[in-house]
C-alpha cells in the first residue's frame, strides 16, 4: 500500500496547483458572486480545465476519458479546494460520470461519457429530498407506462441544477421510502416538459437548485441500470463522491491553515508577532496534527478506489474521510477566522469564503454525525 505520491501524481498535483493559483484563484469565485453571474461558474476556466484533461480524469479511455483514476481526480479536487473555484467537477465528473459508468449500459455510456470528458455536458445528480442528507429517503415516483416512465416529485439541493443539460434522477419505482429495493435511476433531459428548476443562492456562492418534476415522461432507455436495483451503484457513487469531496475539503483545510499560520507570523501585537503566543501556538500545533491524519485518510481512500475489484473497505473509508474532514474543516475555518481577528470578519478578506464553503461541503453527502453513525453500523456496533 502506498501512502505517498508517485512521480506522475506529484507532477499532476504541481500543475493543478499552478493552474488554480494563476487562473482560478479565490478572486474568480468572488467575481462570480459579485457580478451575480448567471451561470455561477466561469466557462472559460472550466474550458481550460477540460483542456488539461480534468473532466475525463476518472472516465475510462474507451469513453474518451484519460483513465487517470480517482487518485488523479482527487489531487485535482484538492487543488480546486485551495482556491474554491466553482466548476462542474463535483456534480458532473465526480458524481454523475461515476454513476453512469457504474450503472449504465454500453449504449448509455457511449452516449453520455464522452460529452462529459469533452466538457460539452453538465450532468447533475438529483438525489436529496430533505434538508438532511438521507439517500434512502426517496419518494419521487416513477410509474411505468407502455413506452417508458412518468416521473413526479421534488428534489432539493441539486448541485449545478440550473446549468445542467441532463439530470440523473433517483426515483422510487417500488416499495417505501427508506428501503433500498425499489430505487431506480433515470436520465432526464433538463429541457423535458414538466421539469422546473429553482436556482438557490447558497452561502458558499456555489451552484445548487431545487427541481420539481410534474408528469415528466421519459422513454424506457432513460432507465440507468436495472429497475428497482439502483441502490448498489448509487451507494458506491455516493461513497466515491464523499471521498472526492473530502479531497476538496482537504485542500481547503490546508489553505486556510497555511494562510492562518502565515498571518500569525506577520501580525504584530504587544510588540511581537501573535504567533509567538503559546495560546495560539498550541492551537496551531493541534490543527497541524489533525491535518496530518486527514491527509492519510484521503490518500488511503483514493488509493483503494483505484484498486478496482480489489478495493477494500470503501464504505467505511468514505465515512471516515467525510466524518473527519467535516470535523476538521469546521475546526480550521473557525480557528482561522478567530486568529485573523477583526480582519477575518471582513468580506474583503478571503478567509470567510472558506468558512462558508466548509459548512456547505460538510452538509453535502452527509455531515460528521451522519458518517460516524454509518461507520458505527458498518463496524458492527
Amino acid at each position: 500500500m502506498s501512502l505517498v505520491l508517485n512521480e506522475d501524481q506529484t507532477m499532476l498535483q504541481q500543475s493543478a496547483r499552478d493552474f488554480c493559483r494563476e487562473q482560478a484563484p479565490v478572486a474568480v469565485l468572488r467575481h462570480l458572486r459579485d457580478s451575480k453571474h448567471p451561470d455561477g461558474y466561469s466557462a472559460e476556466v472550466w474550458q481550460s480545465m477540460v483542456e488539461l484533461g480534468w473532466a475525463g480524469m476518472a472516465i475510462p479511455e474507451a469513453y474518451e476519458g484519460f483513465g487517470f483514476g480517482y487518485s488523479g481526480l482527487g489531487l485535482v479536487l484538492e487543488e480546486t479546494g485551495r482556491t474554491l473555484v466553482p466548476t462542474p467537477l463535483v456534480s458532473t465528473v465526480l458524481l454523475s460520470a461515476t454513476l453512469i459508468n457504474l450503472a449504465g449500459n454500453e449504449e448509455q455510456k457511449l452516449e453520455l461519457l464522452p460529452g462529459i470528458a469533452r466538457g460539452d455536458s453538465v450532468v447533475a445528480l438529483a438525489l436529496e429530498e430533505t434538508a438532511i442528507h438521507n439517500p434512502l429517503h426517496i419518494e419521487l415516483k416513477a410509474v411505468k407506462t407502455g413506452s417508458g416512465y412518468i416521473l413526479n416529485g421534488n428534489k432539493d439541493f441539486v448541485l449545478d441544477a440550473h446549468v445542467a443539460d441532463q439530470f440523473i434522477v433517483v426515483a422510487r419505482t417500488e416499495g417505501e421510502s427508506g428501503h433500498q429495493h425499489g430505487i431506480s435511476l433515470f436520465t432526464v433531459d433538463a429541457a423535458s416538459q414538466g421539469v422546473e428548476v429553482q436556482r438557490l443562492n447558497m452561502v458558499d456562492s456555489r451552484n445548487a437548485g431545487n427541481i420539481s418534476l410534474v408528469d415528466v415522461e421519459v422513454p424506457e432507455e432513460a432507465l440507468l441500470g436495472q429497475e428497482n436495483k439502483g441502490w448498489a451503484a448509487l451507494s458506491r457513487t455516493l461513497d466515491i463522491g464523499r471521498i472526492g469531496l473530502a479531497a476538496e475539503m482537504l485542500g481547503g483545510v490546508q489553505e486556510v491553515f497555511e494562510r492562518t499560520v502565515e498571518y500569525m507570523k506577520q501580525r504584530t501585537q504587544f510588540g511581537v508577532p501573535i504567533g509567538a503566543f503559546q495560546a495560539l501556538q498550541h492551537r496551531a500545533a493541534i490543527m497541524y496534527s489533525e491535518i496530518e491524519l486527514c491527509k492519510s485518510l484521503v490518500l488511503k481512500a483514493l488509493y483503494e478506489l483505484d484498486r478496482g475489484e480489489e478495493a477494500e473497505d470503501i464504505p467505511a473509508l468514505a465515512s471516515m474521510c467525510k466524518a473527519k474532514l467535516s470535523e476538521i474543516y469546521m475546526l480550521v475555518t473557525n480557528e482561522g477566522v478567530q486568529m485573523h481577528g477583526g480582519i477575518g470578519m471582513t468580506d474583503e478578506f478571503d478567509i470567510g469564503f472558506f468558512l462558508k464553503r466548509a459548512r456547505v461541503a460538510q452538509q453535502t453527502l452527509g455531515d460528521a454525525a451522519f458518517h460516524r453513525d454509518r461507520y458505527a453500523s458498518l463496524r458492527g456496533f
Partner: protein
Amino acid sequence: MHDLEAFRAETRAWLEDNCPASMRTPMPEDEVVWGGRNAVFRNPDSKLWLERMADKGWTTPTWPQEYGGGGLDKAHSLVLAEEMQRIAARPPLVSFGISMLGPVLLEMATHEQKLEHIPKIVRGEIRWCQGYSEPGAGSDLAGLGTKAILQGDDYIINGSKIWTSYADQADWIFCLVRTDFEAPKHSGISFILFDMASSGVSTKPIKLISGNSVFCETFFDDVRVPVSNLVGRLNDGWTIAKRLLQHERTMISGFGLSSGRNNRGGLADSLAETAMLYRGDVVELSDPVLRDQIAQFRIDSEAFTLTSQRSAQEAKQSKGPNATSSVLKNYGCELNKRRYELALQAAGTQALGWESLTEDDSDFSQQELAVARQWLRSKGNSIEGGTYEVQLNVIAKRVLGLPDMTAMVGNTAGKQGATGQNSAAEKTATES
C-alpha cells in the same frame, strides 16, 4: 531476491524448530522478558526462547555481528519480522537497552565501550534504566543538577533522579550528569554509564495513582564511576540525550497503535463490544452519545495507524522534516487516554473496581480490574518522554516555524533558575 527467499525458507524452518509452542500465544503482562542479572522467567519456555534467539543475534537483528547482533540488513530483518509475525512469536526480549541505549551506543560509543555493553544487551544479561529527569528538571530537562566531579581517574557523582523506570530492577544506568557548572545549561552535561550495584546508589519505588510502581526515585551519594564510562565527548551529553529521546518518543507513540479494532485481550480493545455487553445490547449500542464517541475514537485510531504507516513510507523516501515523531507521540498518547476514558464509560462501575475481594473474582474480573489500573496509568502517557505541551511547542516552532518568544524577550540560558518556567521548557523542547 533469490537470497531473500532462501533466507525466508531457512528462517521459517528454524523458527518452526526453535520457537516453543507457548511462545506463539498472546503474552500476558507478567511473562514479558526484561532480562538482567535477576531476570524473571514466569514461563520456562521464555528462557529457552531468549537463549536461542540471542545465540543468533536475533534479539537485535540489525545490530552488527561483531557485537553479538544479527548482522541483518533491512530487507532480511523485515523477512525475519514477517516470519515471526506469521507464527505470532513473542518478542524474546524487551528492554531499554534494545530500544533506547543500544542504538545510541552503536552510533556514538567507542569500540571498547560497545564490546563491553552491546553483547550483554543482546543477550539480555544486563538490564538498563534511564537516569534523566530530576525533581527540579522535568520538562526543563537541561536544568538537571546531578553533579559529576573529577577525582583522579573517577567521577564522583552526587544527586538524585526521579521517574526512573524500573530502577529498582535495573543493573546499570545511563545517566545525564552536570560536568561543567559555569557553561550555559545545555553545554555542561555529560552522558555516563554505571553499575547500579555501585556503592552509594539507592532506589525507592514511587507508588502511583494506579497502585503500581514502575517508576523510582534514584539517589547517588558519592558514587565512584571510572572516567572510561563517559560516552561521547565531555560536556557533549546533550547531543546524545536528544538522540536517545527520539528513540524514546518513537517507542511511546506505539501506545496509540493497535487501538480500537485490534485485540490485545483487554476490555478497552473492543470498546464497542464491551459497551454493548454491559448494556445487554444485541444489534446496536443503545447509548447514542457513547456510540458516536466510540466511532469518533475509532476513526481517529484508524487515521492514526495510517499516518504512522505514511510517516514510515515518507521517512524511507526521506521526504520532509522528521517532525512527525512529535505529532505521532502526542496523538498516540491522547488516543490512549481517550480509549481508557471510553472504557470506563463502556463498562460503568464494573471498570472502577480497585481489587477483588472474592476467591473467584466474582465481584470484579481481572480484565475489569486491569482497565481501572490502565486508565490511571494512561494519564502518564502525556507527561513522560516530553509532556503534551512541550511536544506542541516543538511542532509550533520547528514544524510551523512560529516565532520563539524566549528568543525575543532575551533568554539568559546559563545557570538554572535564570529563565521563567515556560521559556525554559520551550528551550528544552526546541532543542531536544
